């Protein structure tokens, strides 16, 4: 008796034999199309995205190179003196010695007699450097002077370090009482981001420093820098 055969297999076999010469090329073309759609097109998209990323990275590299060139071009001693001047103008803490020196020098330059100082120490809490407010130390000064000399003293005090602001003035006969606040501000937390352009001093800033330098007859104070954090994850050089 004849063995049972599957008609479907026979039919498929027959069809395969009959269309074999078309079937293989069709299969190859279909596979190629599939490969193109599934593998090659995504790869092309990846390449386009990598190319864009490359442009961005190139720009970052250029920025880093510019930052390096800028930092190399800055004269260290000039920078140190600028740093010292701004730190004297706005010290990081209550600078009693600086205030006394500044007031005495202003009195000397204006030719007035300084009677007594009165410091109001004020709040002793730590003040945040990020605060927009400027902490200050209030001082009352009594001077022996004419009105004109008092004006001269105020002008001189205006140009002394730390930066002072006259709150009120009371002139009576040859005695003048001046309420002054001396500003200070804690050092800001330094966050160095290598991928941001180094901000060099503008012309206005340089003019301001030069103006401060002309005022700066007092010895500058040496202020240590706070530790800095860096976004590139490198170690601090301080």
């Amino acid at each position: 008796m004849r063995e049972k055969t599957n008609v479907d297999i026979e039919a498929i076999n027959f069809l395969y034999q009959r269309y074999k010469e078309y079937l293989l090329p069709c299969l190859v073309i279909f596979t190629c199309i599939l490969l193109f759609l599934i593998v090659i097109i995504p790869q092309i998209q990846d390449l386009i995205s990598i190319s864009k990323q490359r442009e961005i990275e190139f720009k970052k590299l250029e920025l880093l190179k510019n930052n390096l060139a800028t930092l190399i071009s800055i004269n260290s001693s000039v920078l140190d003196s600028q740093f010292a001047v701004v730190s004297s103008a706005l010290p990081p803490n209550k600078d009693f010695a600086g205030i006394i020196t500044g007031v005495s020098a202003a009195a000397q330059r204006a030719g007035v007699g300084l009677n007594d100082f009165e410091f109001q120490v004020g709040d002793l809490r730590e003040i945040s450097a990020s605060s927009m407010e400027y902490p200050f130390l209030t001082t009352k000064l009594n001077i022996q002077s004419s009105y004109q000399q008092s004006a001269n003293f105020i002008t001189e005090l205006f140009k002394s370090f730390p930066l002072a602001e006259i709150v009120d003035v009371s002139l009576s006969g040859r005695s003048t009482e001046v309420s002054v606040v001396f500003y200070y501000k804690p050092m800001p937390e330094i966050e160095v981001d290598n991928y941001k352009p180094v901000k060099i001093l503008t012309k206005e800033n340089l003019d301001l420093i030069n103006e401060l330098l002309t005022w700066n007859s007092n010895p500058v104070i040496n202020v240590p820098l706070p530790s800095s954090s860096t976004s590139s994850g490198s170690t601090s050089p301080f």
Partner: protein
Amino acid sequence: MKNDINLLLRTKTDQTKKSKLSHLLRLTSVVSIAAVLLTSFILYILSRQLSLEPIKVRQNAVINNINFLKNKQAKLIVINAKLDDVSQIMTKRPRFDSDIQTILPKVPSGVASRSLTLGKQRLTFRVESNSLKNINDFINNFAQMAKSKSLIKDLTLGGIGLDPTSGNYSLSVEAEKL
């Protein structure tokens, strides 16, 4: 003989058609394989050339150099921040010295200043004179200052008094500063 019943001829035509189709398919499949291989090869070469790794290596090299100059960078940041603060403080400081310089010439001769109190908003001035005419000149001068908006914007007379022992008239004025 009719063409439609000529089986031999028909078979030949079909064979030719099938052969052409088969040839075309084979050619297409070969071209497809070649295209896929070529594209893959080009993509491989491009992906090797467009690698981000060399740029990252160069970036790290520059960052390492920058790290040696971190101190300078930090100082520059502090200087910029401090200068912004200094500039703001300097802008808001009132100039009492120039206020005094503006007021003093307005005091006529024969009028003695007894006290002058200057604040950010107001000023109070007390003067003495043995002549009412001088006191009048003083008031006129200050009224003119208020009118021309020079340092003050209004003027309030506090009162005129007479000290019988010295014969001096005293006047106190208050003004709101601009």
